[in-house]
């Protein structure tokens, strides 16, 4: 090696050929360049004197390296410290021997390719999992759709029931209104009958009063007439007695006279006068007798007729008339009194019956209210039993939930926690009231909030890690690009080095040739010319120098031709030797750096994969925990909403600690009492009116006939006691069989019974039809499956799923639908597996889209599946 020095100073002392020779020697025989460490970087130091004038080696080296503009320095710098450190050159091999412990770039490339293929296979498996999950999701959605359809049908059925109930209620309401109208009509009729009865009674009372007054007047007149009669009779009797006395006196005088005449029968004069006296007396007696008869006749008249009694004419006919009238009046009065007594007796009996009926009705009302109360209590009991069942179920759920909670929360502490024998399998104590549950719910909500915040923080960290991962992925991508670029540069450098090596070998051969030529010249000079050869030698040297310049220019042109890829920064012609060494070193350095970068990238990818796997695991765990907490939170929310709803509706309270109080005298109770009283009175009135209607019916017994009325009343009462709701039918049958009203009620009831029976029969018939239809449909599906080779499933949304007999998997099915118009045009809607459908896209296009034949398509698929079966394939 030549010592370093000023080449200009040496040029004057050394001949040009020596300089040229030394230059070529320096090119061909130069030792490997030494390395110069500077800080963490190591740069190649060229110690050759070529092109170096007046500068230190370090400055020259720096300038030279500045002119080189390595690709790494030209590459865009990354901001990440990792890249910075990776891009920083660590080692520079001058001898071109790579370190034995580092992997080769091809191996690293194979490693990365293998990792890529593994990642791709993992991605494929994940994609398959995702497809499977999508299929399951679709199945779940279809399941939900079917459940929704079932719920819709249930709702429609309930709406139909509700509509039927509403119609029934309306019909009953119409019946009730009709009954109320009938009741109002009957009430009006009853009021009219009452008015008529009152008027009749008033009239009868007036007539009775009038008759009583007339009787009184007649009695008075009769008394007067009797008194007058007695007076006149006594007068007449006295007069008659007087006349009789005078008659007796006259008879006695006549007897005496007759005795005196018999004793003195001779005296004619005396006899004539006596005879005259006797005749006069007889005439007088006759007149008196006529008067007596007349008086007796008058007396008879006076006693018979009271009207004419005052006339004071004591005729017998008048008295008889009076007596006859009096007798008629008395008989009329007696009849009226008898009727009055009868009516009073009837009224008393009716009052007694009414009292008895009211008592019975009260008893009946009390019994019915008791029955209602018992029914209500039974209903309440059933409701309470249902509530108790629901609460027990809820308790079981809570118990399970709390057990799960205990299991989840205390799994770590389960070892050192002793099981409580009292509450080993029982729910957590203290949850026996809604308040405690609400507290627990609140605590759980708090826990859920905490866990949610934790989850959010974990999600945030996961997002951060994902961002880091993404940035690392980008870095890796950049590294990969950098590596590819470096590899391209290395290839280009390798090609250039090859070219330069060729040029160098050519130059070496040329130099050998020139040396041989020089040696020949030297020998020729020494042997032939004897030292007189300067001019020829100078010419030859000039030619050789020219040749060397041409060769250099050629090499420079070659380097320029190979250099455009390097941006025209090829070294000058004076740097041929160092450039080759530099290129080799640079290539080795680049390979080493590439290797280091690949290693670092692999390491980084491994770390990244680990971190990614860890984060993925944490994310999965967090997602699972989140889902679990979310489900639990939703369940607790639902439970809290239900409890709150119960509390709002008035159901949630603890009867052991809370009393619900009301004032006894509250408006509702008052209103109910008034309504109950009114209803009771109306019911009594209704019953009375019904009874009255029964009595007024043409076939009923006459009210005047007390015995028959009493019998009818007893029959009615018996029917009322025996069958409360059949009051019209039984009573009408016994007392008023011809009542249209009761017949209407009976007809309605019988019609209701027959309709109920018909409804039950139709329900039975429908259930039988449904069962038979199900059986036939299953049979049809089985026949289709066996003959046509497709299992047909009718889905709730109206579409039909066809699964082939020879299908390799359950998801290899087709879903057809009839479209919106339901006109029988089926179209392929989808299938169980999208990949499967994609595999059959040609058949679908050929058969369905072009030919429009679904059967042809299905037959083709059947044949394909049949041929694809393993047994068939083996045959």
């Amino acid at each position, binding site marked *: 090696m030549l010592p370093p020095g000023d080449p200009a100073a040496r040029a004057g002392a050394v001949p040009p050929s020596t300089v040229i020779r030394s230059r070529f020697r320096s090119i061909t025989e130069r030792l490997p360049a030494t390395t110069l460490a500077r800080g963490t970087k190591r740069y190649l130091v060229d110690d050759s004197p070529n092109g170096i004038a007046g500068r230190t080696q370090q400055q020259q080296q720096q300038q030279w390296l500045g002119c080189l503009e390595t690709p790494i320095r030209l590459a865009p710098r990354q901001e990440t410290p990792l890249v910075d450190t990776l891009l920083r050159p660590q080692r520079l091999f001058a001898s071109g021997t790579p370190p034995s412990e580092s992997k080769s770039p091809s191996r690293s490339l194979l490693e990365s390719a293998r990792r890529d293929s593994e990642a791709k296979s993992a991605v494929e498996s994940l994609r398959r999992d995702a497809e499977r999950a999508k299929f399951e999701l679709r199945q779940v959605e279809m399941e939900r759709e079917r459940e929704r359809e079932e719920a819709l049908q249930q709702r429609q059925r309930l709406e139909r029931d509700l509509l039927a109930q509403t119609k029934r209620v309306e019909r009953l309401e119409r019946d009730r209104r009709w009954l109320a109208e009938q009741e109002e009509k009957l009430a009006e009729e009853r009021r009219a009958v009452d008015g008529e009865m009152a008027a009749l009674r008033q009239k009868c009372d007036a007539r009775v009063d009038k008759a009583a007054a007339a009787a009184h007047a007649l009695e008075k007149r009769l008394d007067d007439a009797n008194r007058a009669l007695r007076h006149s009779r006594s007068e007449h009797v006295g007069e008659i007695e007087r006349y009789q006395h005078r008659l007796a006196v006259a008879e006695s005088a006549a007897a005496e006279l007759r005795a005196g005449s018999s004793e003195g029968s001779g005296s004619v004069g005396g006899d004539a006068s006596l005879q005259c006296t006797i005749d006069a007396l007889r005439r007088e007696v006759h007149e008196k007798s006529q008067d007596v008869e007349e008086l007796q006749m008058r007396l008879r008249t006076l006693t018979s007729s009271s009207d004419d009694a005052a006339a004071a004419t004591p005729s017998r006919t008048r008295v008889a008339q009076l007596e006859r009238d009096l007798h008629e009046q008395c008989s009329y009065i007696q009849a009226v009194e008898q009727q009055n007594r009868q009516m009073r007796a009837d009224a008393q009996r009716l009052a007694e019956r009414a009292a008895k009926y009211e008592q019975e009705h009260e008893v009946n009302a009390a019994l019915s209210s008791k029955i209602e109360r018992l029914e209500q209590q039974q209903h309440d009991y059933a409701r309470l039993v249902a509530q108790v069942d629901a609460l027990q179920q809820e308790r079981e759920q809570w118990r399970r939930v709390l057990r799960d909670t205990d299991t989840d929360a205390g799994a770590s502490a389960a070892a050192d926690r002793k099981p409580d024998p009292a509450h080993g399998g029982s729910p957590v104590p203290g949850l026996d009231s809604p308040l405690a549950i609400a507290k627990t719910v609140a605590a759980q909500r708090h826990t859920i909030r905490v866990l949610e915040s934790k989850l959010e923080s974990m999600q945030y960290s996961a997002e951060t890690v994902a961002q880091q991962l993404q940035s690392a992925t980008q870095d890796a991508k950049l590294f990969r690009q950098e590596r590819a670029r470096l590899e391209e540069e290395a290839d280009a450098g390798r090609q250039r080095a090859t070219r330069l090596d060729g040029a160098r070998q050519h130059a070496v051969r040329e130099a050998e040739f020139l040396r041989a030529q020089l040696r020949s010249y030297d020998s020729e000079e020494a042997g032939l010319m004897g030292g007189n050869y300067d001019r020829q030698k100078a010419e030859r040297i000039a030619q050789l120098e020219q040749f060397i310049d041409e060769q250099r220019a050629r090499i420079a042109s070659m380097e320029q031709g190979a250099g455009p890829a390097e941006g025209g920064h090829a070294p000058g012609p004076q740097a041929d030797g160092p450039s080759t060494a530099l290129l080799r070193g640079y290539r080795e350095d680049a390979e080493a750096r590439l290797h280091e970068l690949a290693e670092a990238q692999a390491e980084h990818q491994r770390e990244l994969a680990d971190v990614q796997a860890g984060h993925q695991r944490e994310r999965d765990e967090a997602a699972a925990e989140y889902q679990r907490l979310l489900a639990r939170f939703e369940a607790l929310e639902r439970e809290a909403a239900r409890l709150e709803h119960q509390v709002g509706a*008035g*159901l949630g*309270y603890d009867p052991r600690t809370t009393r*619900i109080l*009301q004032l006894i005298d509250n408006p509702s109770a008052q209103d109910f009492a008034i309504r109950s009283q009114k209803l009771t009175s109306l019911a009594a009135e209704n019953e009375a009116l019904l009874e009255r209607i029964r009595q007024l019916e043409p076939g009923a017994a006459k009210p005047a006939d007390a015995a028959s009325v009493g019998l009818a009343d007893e029959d009615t009462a018996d029917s009322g006691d025996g069958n409360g709701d059949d009051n019209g039918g039984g009573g009408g049958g016994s007392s008023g069989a011809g009542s249209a009203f009761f017949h209407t009620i009976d007809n309605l009831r019988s019609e209701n019974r027959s309709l109920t029976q018909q409804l039950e029969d139709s329900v039975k018939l429908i259930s039988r039809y449904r069962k038979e239809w199900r059986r036939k449909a299953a049979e049809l599906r089985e026949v289709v499956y066996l003959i046509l080779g497709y299992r047909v499933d009718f889905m709730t949304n109206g579409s039909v799923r066809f699964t082939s007999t020879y299908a390799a998997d359950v998801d290899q099915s087709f879903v057809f639908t009839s479209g919106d118009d339901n006109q029988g045009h089926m179209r392929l809607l989808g299938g169980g597996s999208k990949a499967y459908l994609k595999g059959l896209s040609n058949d679908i296009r050929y058969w369905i889209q072009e030919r429009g034949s679904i059967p042809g398509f299905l037959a083709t698929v059947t044949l394909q599946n049949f041929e694809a079966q393993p047994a068939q394939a083996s045959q």
Partner: protein
Amino acid sequence: MSVQAQLTKGKISLEGSARTVTEFFMYGINSILFQRGIYPIEDFEVQKKYGLDIWVSNDQQVVKYLDKIMASVEEWLNAGKINKLVLAVNTRESRETLERWQFDVTLVEEEAVAAGEKPKPAKSEKALRMEIQAIFRQIAASVSFLPIIEEKCTFNILVYADSDAQVPTTWTDSDPLHVKNAEQVRLRSFSTDAHRIEALVAYRRDPELC
């Protein structure tokens, strides 16, 4: 002046709070009876209260009934034995409960004041009035979403008292008069320094809208 008196200076006492709450119940029940048309409009008259025009019943029976209720309620509020006061609106025909206005009563616990800290300032009368005003406005606005009452109705007032409360003989136990098929809306609340009142209305869902 004692320390406790100094601490509670400016705050209304338990008795004052009970009186405020009872007054609120009185006017609230009257307002609900008017807004829901339980009694005809002729039976009501306007009174100024809480800065609002509130319709108050002048039916003597109703007034007497509410006075009886409120006397007992105030006693129970003073004793802290009352949990809820419920106004149930039920039909006269079937006695079914259509609406249930529930006022939850909770005792406000005195927060422990650490040494050196100032006690929590008392709620001003204006703030209390504004809170009560909001509830009355919500009661008036509830007509817009509550179903129209087409049947003849009456009402009853229930009190959820503690089991150890002293109950006069004019009171009796009752069932909760729950609403079947109920929807419920929570109204605003207000609180004095001693009590917190939360309002809620539950009503029978209109079967035609389901």
